[in-house]
């Protein structure tokens, strides 16, 4: 049985109920009537309530650490008014989506966890909770022969106040499945919420994490499992020419030695519906050793003689060559102009400000190395994997197995750090390819840290050339800039920069160009935005300095009355750092503001403004004394989670700015492990405070994990300039003569 609902965005969906395991199961279905959509033919339970009161919430997203899965359950619990201690999570099986399109993807595409508060997803979760609650109340009313209005609920208990009777949810769950509502209940207004915005429970996985029982991808155990170690072409795009398996075959535990060939991918037998397409998920030519234990596999791999053809990538001999070629592209001024206003000829009049900026390739360095476990047999494939996107993972598995979709099962595990690295699932393709060559037993494939580092899908390397002509008032009369991308290109925070959107600069010309290399790139926490924010916010600072104006006032004037919320973020951060108070000798203060993912809209996305105070000693030791962060994401459903994402994002962005930058050496990445990938640890973390005063209350719950990654770096750079007069136009800062003071 089912009831039609029309959602806020006017797409129809259906709620249906059924008895499962003696309890209530609720499903969502899209109103979509595509062929093959058999409502209720297969169960795709979003929410189940068992007779023992346990509540299972099915999540279509992974958990990468931001608590999105817990938040999804919280959203349901707000309306269900259930006992939170009874709530458990289960991952969606993507095959249900295939059997019954719209089962999980109704406004809820299985996308990485950044979307726990996604507008559509929240609505569906709230509706499910309310629909389940009303069914339970109706079932209780029938049991008690009373009006539904006389039944109230509290913490998974149904209560009839007049008679004092009570029933637990589990006791009427099966009855509730048979209830046919004439219409689905309206959800609460935000003002009626009792949990959202008020409670911040621990993540549902927290207890397992602290006891060591949580299952990340690397922790999967299967009966009879063997282990594989691999080495892919050190120069991306290169190939195995030859290898001497006989040299290692007799080593302890070794079972098989073979290669992976990108040309061997069988391909999906049906059209794929992957989230990001499959073009960027090709195998990399590799040698693989399978052994009884991982240590044995790794030792044999290290001893395996391999000859590589490095291919064309070896041309890129070092970082200087890449930078030089990017600058040549920029000097040609031939990029595609994506934002333009006013005169397109750069004015000769007025004070000229010009700068070229560089940001390098960076490695995500998720603390859980890349891995996965797969069991391939003639007619089925099972994979256990820490994917960042369930739909992408599924279709990559289908494509690399050549099996029919119904023969493929991908089991989601906890994800030991994502940051975008695990969104394409090209790592899962490797796991399937290995299992296909070693069928019949489960194989756990582990990238060593060295392999994880050298076979990344890195942050795009970007150079930017920025020019401004200042008017008599010191404000930019013209701002022309071009960004040259080596890798994944996203323009967020550049072509839609707020200073363009605000309309206060008469002549604008923002263009983009590309310099492709062989290096594989991909999404890296706030992709490309994390470079654009550094360049834009450093350049605006340079303009303010050139104009002899205060950097905070300058930004406020540039933004004009475009967005009171942005201006408020600037004012709060400035006030917290004591912007208008005297700066101690040798110290400097800097500020920067940016928004993910809607820099060009005054009331959208998450704006963060970061103010910092630093000092630099005579021997170039940098001390970051304080970090103050103001932000506006509209509204907040989980204060503690928002603070965690802001803290973590600031630290991630700080590490990116101070420490991160990979080194090209004849086409390969030189760094291998953490001794060459410096990471901030406790001793490096300055005092930081998240300030709530700029939160606007605008009706949105914008995602918050990416935004702070953009504004922290330029704030530190601008502060270093104020302290020293030295302008840092590339990252990482700590490879430019500075060292970081330790607490």
């Amino acid at each position, binding site marked *: 049985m089912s009831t039609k609902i029309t959602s806020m965005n006017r797409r129809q969906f259906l709620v249906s109920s059924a008895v499962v395991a003696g309890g209530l199961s609720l499903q969502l279905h899209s109103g979509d009537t595509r062929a093959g959509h058999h409502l209720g033919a297969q169960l795709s339970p979003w929410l189940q309530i068992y007779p023992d009161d346990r509540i299972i919430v099915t999540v279509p997203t992974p958990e990468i650490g931001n608590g999105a899965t817990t938040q999804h359950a919280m959203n349901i619990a707000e309306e269900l008014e259930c006992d939170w201690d009874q709530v458990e999570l289960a991952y969606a099986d993507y095959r249900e989506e295939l059997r019954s399109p719209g089962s999980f993807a109704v406004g809820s595409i299985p996308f990485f966890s950044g979307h726990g508060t996604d507008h559509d997803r929240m609505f569906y979760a709230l509706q499910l909770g309310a629909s389940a609650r009303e069914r339970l109340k109706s079932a209780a009313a029938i049991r008690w022969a009373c009006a539904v209005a006389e039944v109230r609920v509290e913490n998974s208990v149904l209560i009839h106040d007049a008679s004092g009777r009570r029933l637990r949810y589990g006791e009427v769950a099966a009855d509730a499945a048979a209830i046919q509502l004439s219409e689905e209940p309206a959800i609460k207004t935000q003002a009626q919420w009792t949990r959202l915005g008020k409670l911040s429970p621990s*993540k549902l996985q*927290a*207890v397992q994490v*602290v006891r060591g029982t949580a299952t990340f991808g690397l922790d999967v155990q299967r009966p009879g499992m063997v282990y594989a170690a691999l080495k892919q072409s050190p120069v991306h795009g290169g190939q195995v020419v030859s290898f001497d398996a006989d040299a290692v075959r007799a080593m302890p535990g070794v079972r098989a030695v073979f290669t992976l060939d990108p040309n061997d991918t069988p391909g999906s037998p049906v059209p794929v519906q992957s989230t990001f397409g499959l073009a960027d998920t090709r195998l990399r030519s590799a040698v693989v050793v399978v052994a009884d234990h991982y*240590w044995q596999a790794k030792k044999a791999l290290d001893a395996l003689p391999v000859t590589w053809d490095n291919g064309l990538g070896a041309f890129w001999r070092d970082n200087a060559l890449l930078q030089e070629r990017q600058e040549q592209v920029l000097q040609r001024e031939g990029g595609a102009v994506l934002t333009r206003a006013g005169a397109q000829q750069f004015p000769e009049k007025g004070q000229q400000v010009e700068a070229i900026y560089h940001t390098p390739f960076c490695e995500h360095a998720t*603390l859980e190395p890349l891995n996965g476990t797969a069991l391939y047999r003639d007619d089925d494939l099972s994979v256990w994997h820490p994917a960042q996107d369930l739909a992408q993972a599924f279709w990559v598995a289908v494509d690399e197995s050549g099996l029919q979709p119904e023969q493929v099962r991908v089991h989601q595990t906890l994800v030991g750090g994502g940051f975008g690295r695990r969104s394409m699932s090209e790592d899962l393709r490797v796991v399937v390819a290995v299992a296909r060559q070693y069928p019949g037993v489960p194989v756990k494939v582990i990238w060593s840290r060295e392999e994880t580092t050298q076979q990344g899908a890195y942050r795009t390397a970007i150079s930017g050339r920025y020019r401004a002509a200042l008017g008599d008032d010191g404000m930019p009369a013209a701002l022309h800039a071009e960004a040259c991308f080596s890798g994944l290109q996203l323009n967020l925070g550049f072509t839609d920069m707020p200073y363009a959107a605000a309309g206060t600069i008469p002549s604008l010309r923002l263009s983009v160009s590309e310099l492709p290399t062989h290096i594989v790139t991909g999404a890296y926490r706030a992709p490309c935005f994390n470079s654009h924010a550094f360049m834009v916010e450093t350049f605006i600072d340079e303009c303010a300095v050139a104009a002899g104006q205060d950097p905070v006032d300058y930004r406020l004037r540039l933004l004009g009355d475009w967005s009171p919320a942005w201006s408020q973020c600037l004012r709060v951060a400035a006030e917290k750092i004591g912007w208008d108070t005297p700066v101690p000798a040798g110290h400097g203060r800097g500020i920067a503001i940016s928004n993910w993912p809607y820099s060009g809209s005054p009331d959208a996305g998450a704006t963060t403004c970061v103010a910092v105070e630093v000092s630099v000693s005579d021997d170039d030791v940098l001390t970051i004394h304080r970090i103050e962060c103001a932000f506006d994401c509209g509204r907040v459903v989980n204060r503690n989670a928002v603070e965690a994402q802001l803290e*973590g994002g600031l630290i991630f962005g700080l590490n990116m700015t101070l420490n991160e930058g990979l080194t090209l050496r004849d086409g390969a990445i030189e760094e291998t*492990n953490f001794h060459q990938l410096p990471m901030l640890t406790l001793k490096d*973390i300055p005092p930081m405070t998240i300030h709530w005063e700029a939160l606007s209350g605008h009706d949105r719950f914008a995602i918050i994990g990416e935004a702070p990654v953009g504004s922290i770096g330029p704030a530190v750079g601008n502060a270093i300039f104020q302290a020293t007069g030295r302008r840092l136009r590339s990252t990482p800062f700590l490879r430019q003569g500075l060292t970081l003071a330790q607490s």
Partner: protein
Amino acid sequence: MEQLRFVLNGEEQQLEVDSETPLLWVLRDHLGATGTKYGCGIAQCGACTVHLNGRAVRSCAVPASAVQDANVVTIEGLSSDGSHPLQTLWVEMNVGQCGYCQAGVLMAAADLLQRIPEPTREDIDREISNICRCGSYPRIRAAVLAAAGAS
């Protein structure tokens, strides 16, 4: 291969293993104790931290031969029921994000509290050098300080 005997979380273990195999992989692959994590293999990140005869060590850099007859405690044995003060504080204060590094951090913190029952912020920063890529450091610091205050 050699016969290896040691005590893991109070239980005696006996197995045959290549004496060079790092304790990390003995725990994970041979004994199925996957709470101890692999992060780098070169004692840089601390994800594999365990207690060897009462002191925190990075198990990826300890060969099996070095734990002969030793007493090893991993995250699974920090308490029998998750009730170590650090474990409860970690949950209450929502310290972890992805959680992958936290077993190692907890073992390092537990060792610190044994040696320095009331550590200062400086003690914590100096003694716990584990890498957390999610940036949970402010909460790690706050939780260890809270544990010190509670003890």
